[in-house]
C-alpha cells in the first residue's frame, strides 16, 4: 500500500466526535475542503479564536513608547480569565502587545524569545531593534496567512533604539503600518479618535499615561469584553517597564442607571 507523501501527519481521533453533527455542505469553498480534511488528518487550517484579548493601545511620547491593555481573556461572551498578560517585553528595548487569540500570542512570544537569543548569541554588538522585530513579525503573520493558517492576533510593537522611537501594528493577515498612536480592535473606533484629537509631539510620561487611561476608560464603558484591570507599559531606550495591574476610576452613579425603566411604560 503506497503511503501518501502529500502531508506527513498522523491521523488523529477527535475527542469530541460525538458532538459533531453531520451536514451536507453544497459549497465549493476551499476553506470547507480544508476544514473537512482536518477531520481526518491533523492539518490545522483557518480555525477560529477561543480565548481572546480585546484592544491594545499605544502612543509615542517624549521618552519612548507607552502601550496599554487590559488583562482580560474572553471565551466568547464570557470573561473567563481576568489576569492575562497581553503585553510582553521582547528585548530590553522592545515590547509586544497583542489582541486576539491568547495562545497564538504566547506562541509568538516563544518564537521571539528564540529569535532574540539566537541574535544575542552572535554577540556582534548589534541587537534586533523594534523595527526589525516589526518587520519579522509582519513576515511571520503574512506567511501564515499565505498557508491559510493565520495566527489570530493583531500585534502592536513598540520600542526605542538609538534614540529612534518606533510604534507599529501587524494584523493577522499581514497588514502593517507605523504611526504615532495605534490601537487594535475596538480601540480603532473608540480610542484612535481621542488620540487624533489629543495626541501631540513630545508628551510627557504623565500626559501620555493620562491620555491612554482616558481611552481605556472609554473602552471599559463601551467594549463589553473589556474589564477594569489594566496594565500600562513604558518602553524607553533604557528598558521596558510593565506596571502592575490597576483599576481606573469609573462613574456608574448616573440617574439612568439607578432607574433604567423609569420612562418605559410597561417595563420592570
Amino acid at each position: 500500500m503506497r503511503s501518501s507523501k502529500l502531508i506527513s501527519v498522523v491521523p488523529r481521533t477527535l475527542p469530541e466526535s460525538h458532538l459533531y453533527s453531520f451536514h451536507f455542505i453544497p459549497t465549493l469553498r476551499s476553506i470547507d475542503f480544508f476544514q473537512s480534511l482536518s477531520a481526518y488528518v491533523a492539518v490545522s487550517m483557518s480555525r477560529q479564536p477561543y480565548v481572546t484579548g480585546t484592544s491594545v493601545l499605544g502612543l509615542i511620547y517624549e521618552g519612548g513608547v507607552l502601550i496599554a491593555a487590559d488583562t482580560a481573556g474572553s471565551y466568547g461572551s464570557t470573561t473567563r480569565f481576568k489576569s492575562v498578560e497581553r503585553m510582553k517585553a521582547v528585548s530590553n528595548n522592545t515590547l509586544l502587545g497583542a489582541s486576539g487569540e491568547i495562545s497564538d500570542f504566547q506562541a509568538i512570544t516563544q518564537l521571539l524569545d528564540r529569535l532574540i537569543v539566537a541574535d544575542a548569541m552572535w554577540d556582534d554588538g548589534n541587537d534586533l531593534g523594534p523595527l526589525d522585530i516589526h518587520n519579522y513579525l509582519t513576515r511571520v503573520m503574512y506567511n501564515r496567512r499565505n498557508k491559510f493558517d493565520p495566527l489570530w492576533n493583531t500585534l502592536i510593537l513598540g520600542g526605542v533604539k538609538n534614540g529612534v522611537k518606533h510604534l507599529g501594528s501587524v494584523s493577522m493577515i499581514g497588514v502593517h503600518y507605523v504611526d504615532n498612536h495605534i490601537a487594535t480592535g475596538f480601540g480603532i473606533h473608540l480610542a484612535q479618535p481621542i488620540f487624533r484629537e489629543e495626541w501631540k509631539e513630545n508628551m510627557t510620561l504623565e500626559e501620555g499615561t493620562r491620555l491612554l487611561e482616558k481611552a481605556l476608560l472609554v473602552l471599559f464603558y463601551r467594549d463589553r469584553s473589556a474589564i477594569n484591570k489594566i496594565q500600562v507599559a513604558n518602553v524607553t531606550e533604557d528598558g521596558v517597564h510593565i506596571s502592575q495591574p490597576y483599576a481606573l476610576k469609573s462613574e456608574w452613579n448616573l440617574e439612568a442607571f439607578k432607574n433604567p425603566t423609569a420612562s418605559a411604560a410597561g417595563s420592570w
Partner: protein
Amino acid sequence: MRSWKLAKMSMVFAPRLAESAPTSHVGASWSPYDNNGGTCVAIAGADYCVIAADTRMSTGFSILTRDYSKIHHITEKCVLASSGFQADVRSLQKNLDARHQIYQHQHSKQMSCPAMAQLLSNTLYYKRFFPYYSFNVLGGLDNEGKGCVYTYDAVGSYERSGYSSQGSGQTLIMPVLDNQLKSASPLVLPPRESSTPLTESEAVDLIKDTFASAAERDIYTGDGVEIVIINKEGIRRETMALKRD
C-alpha cells in the same frame, strides 16, 4: 494516496466541525484578503513621468493611518505605485526588489523600465491562482529617456500607455484624464511624440486637481497625496494635503 482520495471523496459529506468555542456564528470564516484602499495615478510626458498616490490606509470603514506611502522606488528610473491589499503590495515590492538586486549582480546595471514592466507582469501571473491583490501603475523613463507608464490588473495583464489610474478612485479619475490627455487618432498628422502634450508642471497640477476631486467622493481616498516626478535630472517628490473626512 488512497487516504487522500478518500478524503477528497468524502469532502462533500464530511462532518461539519461544530464549533467548540461558545460563539454564535458557525465557524469563523476569515478572508485572506482585505482592501486597504487608495488610488494611484501616473502620467507620462515627452521627457518626464509623474506618479502619484494618496497616503490614506483604510480597512472597512475605518482609517488605519493617514500617512502611508503607496509609492515604491524600485530602480533609479522606475517607480511603482500600488493600491489594494497592503500586505500583498508590500510583499510584491520586496519580491521585485530582490529580483532587481539579482539582476544588478548578473548584468552590472539597473533594470530598464520596460524590463521591470515585464518582470512585474510575470511576478503577478506567477500567483495567478492566489493573486496579489495589488493594483499597480509603473512609471518611469524608458531606454530613450521618454516617459512611460504601464498599467496592470491584479494578475499581470499590462499595457504601456500615456497615462493611467488604478485603485478605489480609478473610476472617478480616469474619465478626467481621458478628457484632458487622450490623443486623437494616431493617424492624425503631424505625428505626436507622446500622448501627453502637457509640460511637467501642468501634469503635476492636473494630478493635484484629480486627487482633490477623487477625495470628495471616494471615501478611501484622502488625507494627502504624494507626487513623484522622474526626469533626466533625477527623482523629485512633492506632497499635497487632501480632505481628511
